[in-house]
């Protein structure tokens, strides 16, 4: 096991970080990514390359869909895609993050994974405060491309990867703030009550990061992919609460920017049935697994 990025992965990481820094969170970025070939990195360099692009995009608060196009589709072997792709979990009435911008949609339709083009759906824009454009999608026609379980696993991975990078970005922003903001004669980040909120949240975010990466690597293992999504959802809510609490009133302003990450975290939590559905899936999967190991405790 080697958790360091390969030379190729390190180069990719640096390149996409530079690209995002140059363009900021603009809508043009998606075209830049497509033009540079970064939307198709999984085909050439494997799932961890996709993880790197999605992490960097989340960190940069990219305005537009990245995860479904870069990671979810390639993990189910589907690469022939336009730049902007969304994902929904029902043929009718599902809310889609970035939906109004998308040119195609993955559809989790029970046991089937499908794809629908923009022309095959009706889109009803939905106003939202949750860090993305949203639309309600009604699919008229969609082509089967994979089994539903595979698409669900890939989506679980993508939720977890987007969430961990978003959490870590929100934490980094907050650490900067509390290190500089002075009250009672010293930086508020010097108070242990503040430090421990940040430290425990950071530990959960890092736990999500490494679990999400494992889930991407072993993306056929639903125990892992569902675990990653479930843990990501819990950590996302804690990150939202703790980062806003220690940031104070400035944290809720658009100008300050924290909400760009934190509201997205809560949006991610709602996808694919949310934390409770992921957790049930973890239990169901574990119960079905063979257990060829000694037990630490007496069995009935």
């Amino acid at each position, binding site marked *: 096991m080697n958790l360091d990025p390969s030379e190729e992965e390190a180069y990719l990481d640096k390149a996409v970080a530079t690209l995002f820094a140059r363009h900021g969170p603009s809508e043009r970025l998606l075209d830049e990514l497509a033009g540079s070939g970064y939307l198709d990195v999984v085909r050439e360099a494997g799932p961890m390359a996709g993880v790197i692009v999605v992490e960097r995009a989340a960190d940069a608060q990219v305005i537009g869909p990245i995860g479904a196009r870069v990671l979810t589709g390639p993990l189910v072997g589907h690469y022939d895609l336009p730049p902007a792709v969304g994902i929904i979990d029902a043929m009718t009435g599902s809310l889609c993050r970035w939906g109004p911008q998308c040119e195609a949609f993955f559809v989790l339709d029970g046991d089937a994974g499908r794809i629908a083009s923009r022309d095959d759906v009706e889109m009803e824009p939905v106003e939202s405060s949750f860090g993305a454009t949203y639309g309600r999608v009604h699919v008229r026609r969609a082509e089967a491309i994979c089994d539903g379980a595979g698409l669900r696993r890939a989506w679980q991975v993508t939720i977890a990867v987007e969430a961990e990078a978003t959490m870590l970005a929100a934490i980094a922003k907050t650490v900067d703030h509390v290190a500089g903001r002075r009250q009672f004669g010293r930086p508020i980040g010097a108070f242990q009550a503040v430090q421990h909120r940040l*430290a425990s949240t950071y530990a959960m975010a890092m736990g999500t990061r490494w679990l999400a990466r494992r889930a991407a690597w072993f993306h056929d293992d639903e125990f892992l992919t569902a675990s990653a999504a479930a843990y990501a959802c819990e950590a996302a809510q804690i990150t939202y609460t703790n980062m806003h609490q220690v940031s104070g009133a400035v944290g809720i302003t658009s100008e300050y920017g924290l909400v760009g990450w934190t509201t997205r975290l809560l949006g991610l939590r709602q996808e694919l049935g949310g934390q409770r559905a992921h957790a*049930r899936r973890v239990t169901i999967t574990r119960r079905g697994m063979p257990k060829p*190991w000694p037990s630490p405790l007496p069995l009935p």
Partner: protein
Amino acid sequence: MDLDWTDSEQKLREELRSFITEQRRPGWTHHERDMPTAEDRHAVIAFCRAMGERQLLTPHWPAEYGGRDASPWEQTIISEELWAAGEPRGPQYMNTNWIGPALMLAGTAEQKRFHLELISRGEAMWCQGFSEPDAGSDLASLRTSAVRDGDVYVVNGQKIWTSYAHAADYCALLARTDPATKGAEGISILLVPMDLPGIEVRDISNPWVSHLVHEMWFTDVGVPADCLLGEEDKGWEIVRQVLANERVGIARHECSERTLDAAVAWAEAAGIDTDDESVAEEIGMAYATCEAARALNYAAVHERTQGQDSRRPMAAVSRAVTGPMEGRVAHACLELLGPAGLSRNSPADRQLLMGTTSTIAAGSLEVQLNLIARHLGLPKG
């Protein structure tokens, strides 16, 4: 990144599972790990000897000390499989993970020859005399004294919360050798034979098990001067380096996950509805947290493979998730099992004990959070 186990690592895991099934005393569980009876101690020694004979006890040690320079990943696999099988090695994980390395780091040639051989053969048990009534998380405030008098150090003081003291052959004892100092200065490590006159060990009772932790009194104990490890007054630096090993030494994620498996099996045998959605959600979150702890433990092991620097932030990050994870698993087991979880042998019972202590022992959760705060660059208070 490459997150796969190698073929040889996978083979080692399978070999260990077979070995445990063959060599573990029938019926051995985590309830026997503290060795409440003399028979349990004999079983541990027999198991460790068998491990030693097959070079499974210290494969990660350097070849010059009887190991084969195996990677920390192999050490991790051994820890996962043994801890999750009820730790039939007893306290050997402590010997192999940090007492042995401390001896390699600072021991004399004679200390290395004598102790490392005993440890690698599985024939010695150690305890660690660290905490005192007034020196827990603030370990460097310890007051047990060791005064040089000719060929011996005369030790006086009290240690507390010591695991395995009732069964140990030796104690890695922290004592203050320079009475004029406070804090980390003036502390030494003594390798104390536990059969010396003047050492008294008492079990500290708790609702779960006997011989979980002990008090030790040292009254005018004459410890031979050649039992000093490293330089006099310079023991803290050794402790600082080896405690990083202790922090990632136990694969609690694997054990907790298998405990959840056992709890589900108990529930199904008792006719409890494990399909209930709220129960499945609670159990699922507990499993997911085990996997987060596993992922962080692997990140901490990876960090360890990158160098010997004892400042390893991932060790603290890992522990900040792993400790609360054990408590969460305990409460999930209780929720799942209901009244059946209250029986002494239930999966919930032992897990609750582990979940209660793991955020306290070997550096409390709050200490880990302080370390993470330093890593994040937050200002000191």
